[in-house]
């Protein structure tokens, strides 16, 4: 794996606080010599901030399953009208 590619993956891990100490050290060394990765890292951080700010919500998986079940039953009873 090229070192930029590796750095990008570490950068993504860092967004979830899941990079190991060794990875973080490698990353710091890399962005000191690589401008492109530095810019990428900045953008990546910004995306994390945006996602945090937006306070995103999704329906929980079990809720989706329940909805699907409901819809399925509804579709069955509607098949005659729904060509």
């Amino acid at each position, binding site marked *: 794996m090229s070192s930029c590619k590796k750095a990008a993956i570490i950068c993504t891990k860092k967004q979830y606080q899941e990079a190991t100490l060794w990875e973080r050290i490698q990353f710091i060394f890399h962005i000191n010599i690589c401008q492109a990765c530095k810019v990428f890292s900045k953008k990546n951080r910004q995306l994390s901030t945006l996602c945090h*700010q937006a306070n995103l919500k999704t329906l929980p998986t079990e809720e989706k399953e329940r909805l699907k079940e409901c819809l399925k039953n509804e579709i069955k009873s509607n098949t005659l009208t729904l060509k």
Partner: protein
Amino acid sequence: MTKHILHPDNWVDNHSDYLFNYAIARVSDVDIAKDLVQDTFFAGLKSAQNYKGDASERTWLIAILKRKIIDHYRKINSKKAQATVRITPKADSDFDNNFLEHQVADPLSLLENNAMENEELGVAIHECISKLPKKHALAFSLKTIQGLSTEEVCKELKINPSNLWVIIHRARTSLMECLKNNWFKI
């Protein structure tokens, strides 16, 4: 012009998160938003034969959801008495009597806009997420929005961690590209 067809089987997978966020931004209550999404899907099924195929499926569902939100507000407003506006002048104000001018919103303050901008941001992010390949979108939302641990996501998607990180990395890169025009200020 291409004709759109409805696929009610895929509604939950394709549109529920988008509709849910749209609703939650407008009613600010998780349970009510859930009910509204469900009502929207049912209403959509019921009037499926009226769907002409001019608009995309999502636009059509959003139009229904909008009606549902309006209905919701009508319902709660008919229950309570007419709202009254009460203004209490600040006791420790420098102005002697009911000088209302200092109650007016500060035009320079940005605080009021924040909530609104964040709603739009949420909708924009979901719009971008739904443009991602299905697996990428799922991995990203499990990890970022639902905050699951790496192991849990890997188990759910049946992939190994290094694979997951590559997927999330690609998803994030596409998201940056997609959000670039409106939300990134670099």
